[in-house]
């Protein structure tokens, strides 16, 4: 765990990283706690209060949409779903990618060559089209969206992890483990993988904004999260169609989306500079 803890220690010293991490935490907390405090639900229609502009008085701080649903409640719910989708999808890609990359990198030789050829081959697949087909064909369950987005991002992860593994393999502690008779599986799980954590965390931070954009892209095409649940992407693409009549329906979720994406991007950049100042990975 030394790689991770040193990352955390370094990270504290960077202002951008600290600010972004704090902001993301605060946003996540608000989105979790908000619904407990607010007395508006994100899905209940209220025909007497349709299309209200944001006001400080009257209870709807962010205004309401065309069905009188409170935009604050919907935005918070959207943030929750967006973060959930992005984090879980990234974990999916992480799981597959780390395992695949570590095995390929550690075993090396022909196995490595073969496994990486598969990755190269998969790079050529127009994944986004498969995702679209998948959504059209099998309905839009949350699970499917998670798998679909995760399945796209694991290739990058596998490549990065493989590179790291190859360099780790030559380090003394791995040799030592091998000498005292630890099995290949043991070395991969107990010695290689934990030492990959630093790099992996950084790239996951960078994969999350990709996943968020992917989810909003699907939402824009009408293939995203199932209503009445909503995501920031879905809110933004709804807002786009009403930007002249009710600008708040676009501006508020779009700002929330942009801030989250910015934070993740800055965080990922900052962390990468700490782990790998030359950006060689």
């Amino acid at each position, binding site marked *: 765990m030394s790689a991770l803890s040193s990352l955390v220690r370094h990270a504290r010293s960077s202002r951008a990283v600290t600010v972004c991490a704090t902001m993301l935490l605060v946003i996540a907390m608000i989105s979790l706690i908000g619904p407990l405090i607010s007395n508006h639900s994100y899905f209940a*229609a209220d025909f007497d209060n349709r299309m209200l502009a944001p006001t400080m008085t009257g209870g709807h701080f962010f205004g309401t949409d065309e069905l009188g649903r409170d935009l604050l409640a919907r935005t918070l719910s959207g943030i929750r779903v967006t973060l959930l989708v992005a984090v879980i999808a990234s974990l999916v890609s992480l799981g597959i990618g780390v395992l695949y990359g570590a095995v390929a990198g550690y075993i090396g030789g022909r196995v490595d060559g073969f496994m990486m050829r598969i990755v190269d081959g998969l790079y050529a697949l127009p994944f986004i089209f498969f995702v679209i087909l998948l959504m059209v064909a099998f309905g839009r369950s949350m699970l499917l969206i998670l798998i679909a987005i995760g399945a796209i991002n694991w290739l990058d992860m596998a490549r990065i992890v493989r590179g790291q593994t190859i360099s780790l393999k030559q380090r003394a502690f791995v040799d030592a483990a091998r000498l005292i008779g630890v099995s290949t599986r043991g070395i991969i799980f107990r010695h290689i993988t934990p030492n990959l954590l630093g790099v992996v965390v950084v790239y996951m931070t960078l994969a999350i904004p990709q996943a968020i954009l992917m989810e909003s892209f699907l939402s824009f095409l009408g293939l995203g999260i199932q209503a009445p649940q909503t995501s920031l992407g879905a809110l933004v693409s709804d807002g786009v*169609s009403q930007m002249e*009549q009710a600008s708040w329906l676009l501006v508020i979720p779009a700002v929330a989306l942009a801030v989250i994406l910015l934070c993740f991007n800055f965080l990922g950049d900052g962390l990468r500079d700490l782990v790998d100042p030359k950006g060689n990975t």
Partner: protein
Amino acid sequence: MTTSTHIKRFSARGLLPAWFFLALLLVACGDSGPPSVQESVLRRGNGAEPESLDMHNAISTEAGDVQRDLGEGLLGFSPTGELRAAAAERWVISDDGLEYTFSLRPEARWSNGEPVTAADFVYSFRRLVDPATAALYLISVTNIENADKIIAGELSPGALGVAAVSTHEFRIRLNSPVPYFLSLLTHPSTFPLHRASVERLGDEHLRAGNLVSNGAYKLQERQVGSHVELVRNEYYWDNENTKIDRVVHYVTPEPMAELNRFRAGELDMTRTIPPESFVQMKDERPDEVRTSPSLAVYYYGFNLTKPSFRDNPKLRQALSMAIDRETIADEVMGRGETAAYGWVPDGTANYQPRRFSYADMSRKERHHTARQLYREAGFGENNPLTIEVRFNTSNVHQRIAASVQAMWKEVLGIGTVLINEEFHVLLANVEQKDITQVFRLNWSGEYNDAHTFLSMFESDNPSNLTAYQSVEYDSLMDRAAAQTDPDRRKVFLAEAEGLLLNDHPAIPIYFYVNKSMVSKRVQGWGDNVLNYHYSQHLSLAAEE
């Protein structure tokens, strides 16, 4: 290759020329010449890509609008929707209502100058029913003698009950009288075809330069995903009265993008107006917003093969009564949609629509009765009901479903699960009648007659997706069909509608409205229920 030449070829200095190159490229692409002659060009937003220009292959309204500019059937419509003579100048109907004899205009010409003859109609009708054509839309001809057997492959297309009595006399024999038959003959699937070019060129006959048409326009250019461009057919018999020289039907699948194009001055008329922008357009351009009632109804159907809804008309009625149609039509939609308390919209020819018995109750009264019926059906606080509503993915359906959910909750305390599905998935589920409970669909009239709405609930109609079975209903519809006297037929149809309103196999919610942006420049526009706007009836005022 030395390193220095490499550096010269690939260096930062290249960036400046690259900027120039980019600027040049953009300028170079923009070499559009000025319009040469003063001609009158109508730019129509036509919605989705017309799937085919083949009169026998198309089914969509988008294709229909292009085809009505290209071709001409025996009859047509005036701008305000009255049936009138077109390729036929007059016709005689036999007393038993089975034989129609049309006299074609002797002066009618194809776009290549050849005369339009009865043989062209015979050829087209036979090709339409030929199984090898694999046509999708045969409703106009299914009542013609032997049509069913030809479609089923039992007879050859030559056996169809159509004949060229003389060069300009065309005769149709029907199996049974069809009071609205004349209006079916306005549909593009019944337009004549130029036999020589169709047979010689096959599918190629649809290409610009090959397509021979008999309407006011001929095909100039077609770019899939972009536009269909038509120019005046100089040989058209009524060419003198055709004002617009060139019509471009632009492909505009996105209503919001279409509206933006209209506002940017790129279109003279649009296919629709997105719900989000309707009020804004009403404010900003009140003279250019055109709305008229439409022959289409939005409804929630019940799957009557499953318990809860089967054999439980009280529950179905309670659910219908709990829906505030005015709120949905006026507030949620708000483009002139009207609350539907029956199946046949106002404006349908030769018919007096019926309404639900509770149509005129006050809201309070209605809710009270709904609760009472709901309890009588065996549900209540102790035995609450949860319903799944399926609809296809779209903002509008989502809003309406959320509204219905709120209304059912408020009035009856019912929990509703909203399930949106991609359209074909929804259709597949509805047709299977396995997992669906309540589903959203709409039904649009294909001809201006109450029959088009009521036939949907006949037991053997494949489009009867609720699986409503009523011997009484079927017999009323049969009796209406056998009736040649329009007034007596009307009575049977109304009785059938009354039965539907009593049985609630589905809940009609609102009647659609035709809505378009039409530029102030466009003259001669008439509102009509079918939303047909022939380009030949329109003209453009001079630019201000």
